[in-house]
């Protein structure tokens, strides 16, 4: 599989007020692959993920230097956040469907971007729920509240909601940490399926998960990228001692 660059990150630094959360990040993220960010709590992996779809813009007092480009275009200087977020979707740690029906949840994205026709929305909802591997389970209760299903199903509905806006990239911030093992596996299978059509970047504190599904892995520690490369190499042949210590469980 040839590495085709989707994102290019250069000299990225991020400050929460006086505290520096990200230090000199330089890396390329590749199209059509699953890239995993691993590292102990507080190492900056989630913060970095949120710079990719500019969700950090919503936080008071955040300062960013350096740049990130997607397909060659600077996402901070040459693109507006709204457009960026229709191309880069995000799935969060806690399943958080809106307090509406399953249909309205999935249709929310298309609706706010102007899609009004019911037939078109019906099509998008069905397609997204199928892609999220949950169509069969909910197709008869689309009008029921999305809060009335299990956590694992809610998370897949949230994934469908993200897929409905037809992004190119899907960011996942510890998407299975609040779920049971069976739902976790279902979502891991889902991610593996989706990488055929999407670029996926997943933050996880579960190393085994990273090992199972990702093509590339980046190891973060106190805001820096310690090591980044093919998952196989990171897990079987880490170059940095700190990486090896983390992988073997000496700290975490």
């Amino acid at each position, binding site marked *: 599989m040839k590495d085709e660059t989707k994102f290019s990150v250069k000299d990225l630094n991020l400050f929460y007020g006086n505290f520096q959360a990200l230090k000199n990040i330089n890396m390329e993220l590749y199209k059509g692959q699953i890239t995993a960010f691993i590292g102990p709590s507080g190492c900056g992996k989630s913060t970095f993920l949120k710079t990719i779809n500019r969700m950090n813009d919503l936080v008071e007092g955040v300062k960013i230097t350096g740049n990130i480009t997607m397909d060659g275009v600077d996402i901070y200087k040459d693109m507006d956040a*709204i457009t960026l977020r229709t191309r880069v979707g995000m799935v969060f740690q806690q399943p958080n469907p809106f307090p509406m029906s399953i249909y309205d949840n999935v249709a929310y994205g298309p609706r706010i971007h102007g899609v009004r026709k019911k037939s078109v929305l019906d099509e998008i909802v069905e397609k997204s729920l199928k892609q999220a591997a949950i169509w069969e389970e909910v197709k008869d209760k689309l009008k029921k509240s999305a809060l009335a299903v299990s956590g694992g199903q809610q998370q897949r509905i949230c994934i469908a909601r993200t897929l409905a806006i037809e992004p190119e990239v899907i960011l996942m911030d510890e998407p299975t940490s609040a779920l049971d093992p069976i739902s976790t596996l279902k979502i891991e299978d889902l991610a593996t399926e989706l990488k055929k059509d999407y670029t996926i970047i997943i933050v996880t504190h579960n190393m085994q998960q990273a090992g199972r599904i990702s093509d590339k892995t980046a190891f973060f520690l106190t805001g820096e990228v310690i090591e980044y490369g093919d998952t196989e190499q990171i897990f079987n042949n880490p170059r940095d001692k700190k990486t090896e210590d983390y992988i073997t469980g000496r700290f975490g």
Partner: protein
Amino acid sequence: MRAKARRWEFTMIKNSNTKLKDGIAGGLIYLSATITVAILIVIIGFVLYKGLPGINLKFLTRMWDDVTTVVDVNRNNVTGNNTEAGYVESLGISIALEDEAVVIKSIDNDSPVKDAVNVKKVPYALKKGDVIGKAGSTNFKNITLEEAKLALNEGTGPIKMKVTRPGGGIVPMLVSTIYIIGLTLIIAAPIGICAAIYLNEYAKPGKTLNIIRFAIQNLAGIPSIIYGLFGMLVFVQGFKMSYSILAGSFTLSIMLLPTIISTTEETLKEVPRTYRESSMGLGATKLQTISKIIIPSALPGILVAIILSIGRIVGESAALIWTAGTIAQIPKTLVGSEAAAATLTTKMYWLIKETADLEQASSIAVVLIVLVIALNILSKFITRRFLKKRTS
């Protein structure tokens, strides 16, 4: 052996002391609760005792003042087959003597009194309960039923009658209260809700925000009579609205803004942050997120804020006495002389101050208490129902 027995004795003494203290404390608590409930019962009981006798259909459906009108009625010569003592054929009505007054007791469906017109040729249909003071040239004072019938049937064609519609009812106050509630909410709700949205969603934390919050909190604590004074100076006199429902509504709006803002803000805070994040993550603008996710989620809380406001409007007296006046009439305009309107509360004030009719004041009090209780029940019902909906 001995030490053990002593330790056991200690525990016994400790227990009986503690038990005594517990007993006294418990007794005091029960006593306080009983006194509180007793006071509530006494207050409501007293008001009910004085006011309940005065509450009847007339009280609830009539205007306040007696209204005397001169009307023209086209009599017809259709003879009804009603042989009752008080039946007047030419008018199709039944009359009777009550307290030396001639009262209309019933009106036929096809009675011409329904088409009566006043001196300005405006229709003024007569109603059951109206008192006839004069018919033609006959004064009905100290008249017998027979003489009254004769006077009414005398001659043919139209007859001029002086009719008094008795008052003593609270309809004008009820209608005025509804007008004032509507006006106040139309003014205060949009401003309050938007202000709350600004404070919770847009404002950056800092000194300015703290000052604004401090100001709102203090506004909420200002005694309502000061709002009355302010309203009188600024709206009634300054803007020359004179005693009017608009002056009253503006004053109440200002008074209620802090409550609406605070309650709405509390509701907005309860909307989980993750909803906002997910919405923004899908590429929604802040405005879309607010209008499609946050406000709908906050709607039950906003509704409760509105109902609480209605409760306060219904119960407000000091601010309205000096801005909307105490004249019992249904206001016809927003400002000016025809816009003064007493509410239930301000009329009570007037009754206590100007007349000695504490019974009537108590009757109004009973109506007020019923209204307030009804509003409380309504707000609890809505809260519970929406709480269920959210979690289902």
